[in-house]
């Protein structure tokens, strides 16, 4: 291999604190900025890349062998890839062919995502653990270390940035039981679906796993943009509202906080991840940024009322500080690792929310019953769910074929 060829394939990840990792280019040509985070999930790379919550972030996967089972159209958690860039130790050149529709490298390239492979991702992870989540740049075009570090420093971080506004849908839509986006119903139209009940999902960067889970309960799911005024959302006459996950600093997403303030107390509300954080803010609590967030599929959480541990999928860099919560609100879930507030509820206001991802995708389904809890909160009986207690929505067998 000649030096020139190698150079062409080179890529550099530079961190704001001056640390530089040199590796090979994996995806598209270009330069990407973001906060570098690590995710310890051993599977689900495509779901992670297409999770809108990763907007603004460069994702390092700690499992070294990525792309082993290829990519598939139905593994998308949203319309496109949202992570700013990807960092891996090694991407499979030849995935296991059985269910793969393509290779990771081309997939990234076609979608314009910059990525690097061949670096010591464990060293990077340890660095993040020590230094916290840092601003970084990943480049395949500029290979000058010093210049890149300067660029990383100059880049916009996550704090104070309203990313939800960037990733939310432009128009309301209906999520069909078949797993597609369809035209939103007229607000006055009666709900469709076996339950004849409608939920409105505020899209701050919603994952399809959430929509599938709700649709799997027989609900009609209407997704609305983040800035949708509460009256407009309520005009759909939903039985409940879901405040979705999303990227960035919750304190910098005023429309999300406003939505939470508007719906909590009026209707049963389920908050997930960012939706949980803005619920906390709406109730008067504060949020803090973690040194390095929780990103992975192995996080144990104590479900306090049930006195049981659930292994959860998590992806958050901010947490709700429960000390500011009003009377009547209770912490329902706690991280066993660091005690962080992972869920709260306010029964009098029909509010439940969790910091982790009950829809999994990727990750374990231990907390999937939360969707049933929500449906019960919405006044719907659990009858229908009991008929098929096995396949959780996110892993329904029909989707695998």
């Amino acid at each position, binding site marked *: *291999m000649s030096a020139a060829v190698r150079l062409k394939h080179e890529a550099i990840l530079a961190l704001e604190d001056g640390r530089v*990792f040199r590796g090979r280019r994996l995806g598209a040509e270009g330069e990407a900025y973001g906060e570098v985070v*690590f995710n*310890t*999930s*051993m*599977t*689900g790379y495509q*779901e992670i890349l297409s999770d809108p919550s990763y907007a603004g972030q460069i994702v390092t996967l*700690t*499992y*070294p*062998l990525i792309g*082993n*089972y290829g990519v*598939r159209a139905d*593994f998308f958690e949203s319309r496109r890839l949202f992570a700013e860039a990807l960092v891996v*130790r*090694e991407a*499979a*050149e*030849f*995935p*296991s*062919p*059985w*269910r793969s529709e393509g290779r990771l490298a081309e997939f990234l390239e076609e979608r314009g995502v910059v990525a690097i492979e061949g*670096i*010591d*991702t*464990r*060293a990077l*992870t*340890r660095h993040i*653990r020590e230094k916290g989540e840092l601003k970084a740049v990943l480049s395949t075009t500029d290979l000058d270390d010093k210049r890149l570090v300067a660029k990383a420093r100059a880049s916009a971080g996550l704090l104070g940035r309203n990313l939800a506004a960037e990733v939310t849908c432009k128009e309301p839509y209906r999520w069909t039981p078949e797993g597609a986006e369809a035209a939103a119903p007229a607000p006055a139209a009666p709900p469709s679906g076996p339950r004849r009940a409608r939920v409105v999902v505020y899209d701050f960067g919603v994952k399809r796993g959430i929509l599938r889970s709700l649709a799997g309960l027989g609900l009609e799911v209407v997704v609305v943009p983040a800035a949708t005024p509460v009256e407009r959302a309520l005009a759909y006459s939903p039985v409940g509202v879901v405040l979705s996950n999303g990227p960035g600093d919750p304190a910098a997403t005023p429309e999300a906080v406003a939505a939470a303030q508007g719906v909590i107390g009026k209707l049963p509300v389920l908050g997930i991840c960012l939706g949980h954080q803005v619920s906390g803010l709406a109730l008067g609590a504060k949020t803090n940024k973690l040194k390095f967030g929780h990103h*992975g*599929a*192995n*996080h*144990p959480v*104590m479900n306090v009322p049930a*006195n*049981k*541990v659930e*292994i959860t999928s998590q992806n958050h860099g901010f947490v709700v500080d429960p000390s500011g919560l009003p009377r009547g609100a209770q912490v329902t879930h706690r991280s*066993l*690792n660091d005690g962080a507030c992972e869920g709260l509820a306010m029964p009098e206001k029909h509010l439940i929310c969790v910091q982790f991802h009950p829809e*999994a*995708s*990727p*990750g*374990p*389904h231990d907390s999937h019953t939360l969707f049933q809890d929500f449906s019960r909160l919405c006044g719907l009986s659990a009858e229908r769910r009991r008929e098929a*207690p*096995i396949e*959780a929505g*996110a*892993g329904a067998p029909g989707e*695998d*074929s």
Partner: protein
Amino acid sequence: MPRRDDLHKILLIGSGPIVIGQACEFDYSGTQACRALRGAGYEVVLVNSNPATIMTDPDVADRTYVEPLTLEVLERVIERERPDALLPTLGGQTALNLAVDLANRGVLEKYGVELIGASLWAIETAEDRDRFKQTVLKAGCEVPRSGYAHSMEEAKRLGEEIGFPLVVRASFTLGGLGSATVWAESELEHAVARGLSASPVGRILLEEYLAGWQEFELEVMRDRRDNVVIVCSIENFDPMGIHTGDSITVAPAQTLSDRDYQRMRDAAQRIMRAIQVDAGGSNIQFAVNPRDGRMLVIEMNPRVSRSSALASKATGFPIAKISALLAVGYTLDEIPNDITKKTPACFEPALDYCVVKIPRWAFEKFPAADPVLGTRMKSVGEIMAIGRTFPEALLKGLRSLELDGSAKGLGQAAGEEDLPALREQLRLPTWQRIRQLWAALAVGEPPMEVSRYTAIDPWFLHQIQRVTDLENEIREQGTIEALDPDTLRRAKRLGLGDAHLAHLTGAREAEVRARRLALGIRPVYKAVDTCAAEFDAETPYFYSTYEEENEARPGGGQKVMILGSGPNRIGQGIEFDYCCVQAAFALRDAGFEVVLVNSNPETVSTDYDVSTRLYFEPLTLEDVLHIVDTEKPEGVIVQLGGQTPLKLARGLDEAGVPLWGTSFDDIDRAENRARFADVVRELGLRQPANATASTREQALTEAQRLGYPVLARPSYVLGGRGMRVVYDRGQLASLLEEMPPSAEEPVLLDEFLEGAIEVDVDALSDGTETLVAAVLEHIEEAGIHSGDSSCVIPPYSLGEEMVERIHEATKALAAKLRVRGLLNVQFAVRGQALYVLEANPRASRTVPFVSKAVGIPLAQWAALVLSGKTLRELNAIDIPEPKLVSVKKPVLPFNRFPGEDSLLGPEMKSTGEVMGRDVDFGYAFAKAHAGAGESLPTGGTVFLSLRDEDKRPALFLARKLADFGFHLLATRGTWRFLTMNGIECERVFKVNEGSPNVVERIAAGSVHLVINTPLGRESLFDEKAIRAAAVAHGVPCVTTIQGATAAVAAIESQIRRALDVRHLQEEDNAVAAEARTS
């Protein structure tokens, strides 16, 4: 939910001797469990017949019964100890089965013993095929289509229902007898007929054969509050149809998407709940059809297993320890994660490396065994390797196997013309498969194509192809000097060892190393931390890789490094791990930091809290030298891990590494035949006359000179391999055809000492004084490998004077060889003559047995002597005489290898051993037999067939047996002899004389003991058939007159008095006295 305070004393059952399918992983789990339970404040009573285990050391449990694992013994122990609970899930299938029997016979109820860890219902549901199937189906999972048939019609109907291929399994047979894979309807009738006739109950199981499906395993834990975690997923490289124990396996699963993995995880949780595993771990096996994703449940083991040991080592999550704690009431969230210390054990480990396990087989020792791998496990050991990529882990694994050439890589440059043959071979999986597919990929067979006929996922094959491509590239570049630095760097990063690169470039390994170091290419060490670096870990557990950042924390104290023994194999097993672990304990207590290196996931030594720091690495010179460079120990111990580390002594010595113990040159004086002959001669001791021949003619002449029979062996093998007793010129001539001698590989000839008593001695020397720890007298005569013969402490037939001479000879050898540390000497005694057979300046297989028989911490003392202590300082000069008689009996794997003759010889074949202890020899021998699963009868029928020399000495035995009321059965010659001497005896046909013949009688279950001493030379068809029948039907079979004498003594003891059990901790004196008066 904290620990249960209503329990105080807990009984733990071990897994008994090491056998294929149940090896030292259960010592690892049992030891962890004992320590965990005692740590939680419980009193632990342990029963295990295997003396070579760490768990049976007197300080691991409170009361340790080294007694046979039989119902009778367990009932006696329960009666005596009155435990509150029985924990049966840590001793493999053996413990589980015993627990079920104890429960079903009402023993547990009678003594108020609670079964903890798994309920009787759960165990039985997991074990019983039908119940399991129904339960799993109810939980919403699928199982393979199957059913039982008792007749041809039934089978045909079932066959139609199930479809083809299907597998036929005969119920209640051993070694896969009567099972067959049926690919098409036309083959069904034949297979069914064979299966029905092979099954003693005339029943066969027909099951959908999952050809080409992938196999996966999950290690799952559940606590009594229904918290469930998956500790590890394991993907089998080899497809369904090859037992997981015989498959290369990889952790975590590589080719499952998140969706598929979560589906499996959900199923595992449902199964745990359905089978009601309330407090412990289980292993669940799945089959996945890669084409459509269909997922079936194959089996579940509601206990720790070989795979759970592997998973523990692969993740750093101590499954056995946590299982034990769950069984006494803790919940997962209450137990801290030892490794991070900050987070709880209630989580699922995240790996940031790839783990590969590779089995190791022993087919070279069983030439008649069927080499095809199938649904019955055949491997005797395994290694595990950790790397950042699959090729790196695989290559590290291959060099850990220590097989001929495995360190050189496997890509023997075949030509394309070999492809048709390779394709043919690859269709039938044997232990050579990895080599064959390597060769096929190396000559350009596309991975997709290889996958078509091996059913191995193309992902794995592409990964191997990366290696074969690079191998080809390196070969093209020529010499090591010509190799471009970047390629060398890539090669190291991909996992190629120096020996491998040396092979490819025609260089010496040292040259590769020198060039590499000159270029600054060195590995770094990364920690195994359960959490992919998310949390700061205090783990002292490392693997090497070629990356940027080094995490090794070599520490600053006084350091010593112990090299382990690598994969278990016949001849080098758990005994050596025992020595390494004991040494680690002793040296840590003495204030040293102990650095341990080993590659065997089944062992106690690779538990991360045994040493100060654990390096899970191949035991090759390259890998060990890197660790030495990192840790810079004061000394390296090579004499405790068997041949594996001993073989490294030269290279380490040359590299200037400080070796503790006997010097390399002195080791060589013991191992080199010519140099050792000088030593023996100078001491005025005697060796069997011997010769070395490098031509056929020379061999024949020398043999004539030595006089037949002679013992012949090739010079290049160890462990008695290829050793043969040759009785005449004709036999020698044909043997020389098989292994033609040459100047490089001469044949070694020894005068064969017929009828000699063999003796093993274990001694410890500090360089000035020598402690003879024990003299072990073998029961079988010399000619049967020391590892395969039963032996006794103290000697039972040797005179005091001879024992004294043996002591003196051992001490003289120790002094002459300047031994520091352990020494094992094998002698043969014939009449008044004492011969030295060999001297090994290292730990021997018998060290743990001796320690327990004599009641001394021999391996610990050895470690301390190596660190510079004298025997006097250790107070290890005068040791008391043992008060009990201890018998060690080997356990042989013939039931796994139908077709292989069970006759013993100079080549070792046993996989494990048991110990029997009692006040008299007879009972100790009886217990050893019972422990080996061959309980000697106290009534019934004995079959005798004796060679002429043995007839006279056997007369006395036959008379005794008759007096005890046994019915005697004999073939013509023996029958005539016995009847002539007035002993009543029934005559039975030989196999070719008609029916009912002896084999049929054995098969019918009407013979309870076989005494069959063979004719020495080629064993006859009849004898083979008799022994095979005995093995197949589990009838104890004695093949030597000495063994028969011992067996009769054992029978007599068992008839004379009742069974007595005693633990290691009790005052032997007192018990012995008590037993004698009772």
